[in-house]
């Protein structure tokens, strides 16, 4: 039997979508709240300080690991990717605002550059819930935070103000916990974190010379002894560190641009996904009560479904365009090292790795290793 091609194609899709003659299965009422989500943190005001806690601690916030995207949806992957950068910039901004720290930097990748590093993996994110697994660890290996944190928006978070953030409580909570941890350490313990950080960085470039200065006990690093202050190699290491910081500061501008220009679009996406979650919740309740018959199939009810669906898709695609814009403008980075211009290509993460590998090579060549 010969069929026209369109019908065969349509049949193929019909079968994929649970059969044409049947009413499509009612979709999941709401993104299932994974049982291991912790309770939402609630309202958390940010504790701010007029002066940083002494001695000043520099903090590195690593760009977050994006939320998983089922089914390889390219647009959603790009959205998740850019979202992970945006949310990291928000945490950085709150940490800076808390006034507790020295420099707070965004790191494209994990690094030994800062004595305290904060990283996070997005477990779930929409306009209703944000769930992150947060890890903060200092140079000695002391774990400050290692747990999943959950923030849930309330009606008061919407509509989102121009510079607002519906998940600000989450960043406040992280910032407050970090500051409390740092305050609880004795002055000697704080000094030790800074010293170990410097030695670790040096040991990563010149392991033969500096690894022996570090000891390890009960899974914690400590300074077994210290190099002479006049050690000439320390100067070179400081120069290399300065060059790495130059890169971080160069790309930082791009993250600031991202934060400034994408916030409104991201807020619109949050609102749309919240509306979708709310709609699905009320739809699920109506279906459970079987009282949706009167209105089902009316223009109002169909339009409500379609408008909610369309709003999320439109916002997702706006974010996708931003993600492309970010990718387009983030090329290439030209760095200068002792008069030489070096062009780096690829993603920011990859460029950061290239730059660090290059600095390590330069250092080894200079030292004749």
């Amino acid at each position, binding site marked *: 039997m010969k069929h026209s*091609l369109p019908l065969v194609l349509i049949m193929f899709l019909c079968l994929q979508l649970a059969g044409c003659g049947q009413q499509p299965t009612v979709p*999941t009422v709401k993104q299932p709240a994974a049982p291991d989500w912790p309770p939402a943190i609630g309202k958390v005001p940010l504790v701010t300080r007029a002066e940083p806690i002494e001695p000043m601690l520099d903090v590195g916030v690593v760009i977050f690991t994006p939320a998983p995207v089922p089914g390889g949806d390219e647009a959603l992957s790009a959205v998740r990717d850019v979202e992970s950068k945006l949310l990291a910039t928000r945490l950085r901004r709150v940490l800076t605002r808390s006034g507790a720290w020295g420099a707070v930097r965004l790191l494209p990748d994990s690094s030994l550059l800062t004595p305290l590093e904060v990283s996070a993996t997005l477990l779930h994110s929409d306009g209703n819930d944000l769930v992150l697994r947060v890890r903060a660890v200092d140079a000695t290996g002391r774990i400050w935070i290692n747990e999943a944190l959950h923030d849930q928006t309330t009606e008061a978070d919407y509509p989102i103000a121009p510079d607002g953030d519906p998940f600000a409580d989450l960043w406040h909570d992280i910032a407050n916990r970090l500051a409390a941890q740092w305050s609880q350490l004795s002055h000697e313990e704080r000094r030790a974190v800074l010293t170990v950080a410097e030695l670790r960085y040096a040991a990563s470039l010149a392991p033969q010379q500096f690894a022996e200065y570090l000891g390890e006990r009960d899974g914690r690093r400590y300074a077994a002894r210290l190099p002479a202050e006049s050690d000439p190699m320390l100067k070179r290491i400081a120069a290399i560190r300065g060059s790495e910081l130059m890169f971080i500061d160069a790309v930082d501008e791009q993250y600031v*641009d*991202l934060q400034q220009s994408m916030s409104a679009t991201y807020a619109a996406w949050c609102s749309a996904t919240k509306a979708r979650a709310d709609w699905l919740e009320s739809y699920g309740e109506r279906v459970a009560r079987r009282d949706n018959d009167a209105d089902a*199939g009316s223009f109002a009810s*169909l339009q409500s479904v379609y408008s909610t669906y369309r709003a999320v898709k439109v916002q997702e695609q706006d974010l996708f365009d931003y993600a492309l*814009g970010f990718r387009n403008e983030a090329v290439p980075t030209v760095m200068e090292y002792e008069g030489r211009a070096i062009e780096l290509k690829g993603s920011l993460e990859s460029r950061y790795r290239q730059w660090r590998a290059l600095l390590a090579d330069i250092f080894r060549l200079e030292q004749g290793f």
Partner: protein
Amino acid sequence: MVLMLGCGTKPRPAPDGPVRERQPLLDFSGSWEVDFSASDSVPRQISANLRQWQRDMERRARTPSRSGPLTLNLGGRSPEAVLALADMAELITAPELLQILQDTSSVRVRRENSFALVCQLTREPPVVTNTPFGREACTWDGRELLFRVALPEGLVIEHQLLLAENRNTLALTTEVSSSRVREPLRVRKVYRRYDPTAQGFRCTETLSKGRVCTTEAPPKP
């Protein structure tokens, strides 16, 4: 051009019949604008549906004992339900301009004032994506590209894009059905290629400046 065609009436291929080899998708890229003279209008379709509903009513009136008492909802074609679906179809098929971006990995049908239809070409079709709102699927074969989305309330939307052999005309057939109207409304719109730079400017998305338009000629490929 206007067809009332339910999925249930479509012929099913023999389950053990030979499988036709799929052809790679032809290049749909470009800017397209609607050709009103060759396209359906939704009001015309409503008339067709209402005429069908009237015929059903008359038939049932002639045989009341077999069909039971008259109600407004006859075979899923009450005037309210048909009008609701027609309004939906009008909303969904409103875009007059399309911009199609295609490379080896995906095809993206950007529609004016609506969201883009996106299909990943690197995956084995049909490409099915589950979202919190329902299921999306797409498939393709040579000159054809098909998108289908199933949403709550039984709302199912299907878009079939068919590229003419001369590749300068594109037919976008949209089929909309709901749990209350099993026979879908089908609207066919015809689009023709146009040159957006003939307007004297072209636009691109950038991060720092948003949408940037220029009057410069595009770079030569």
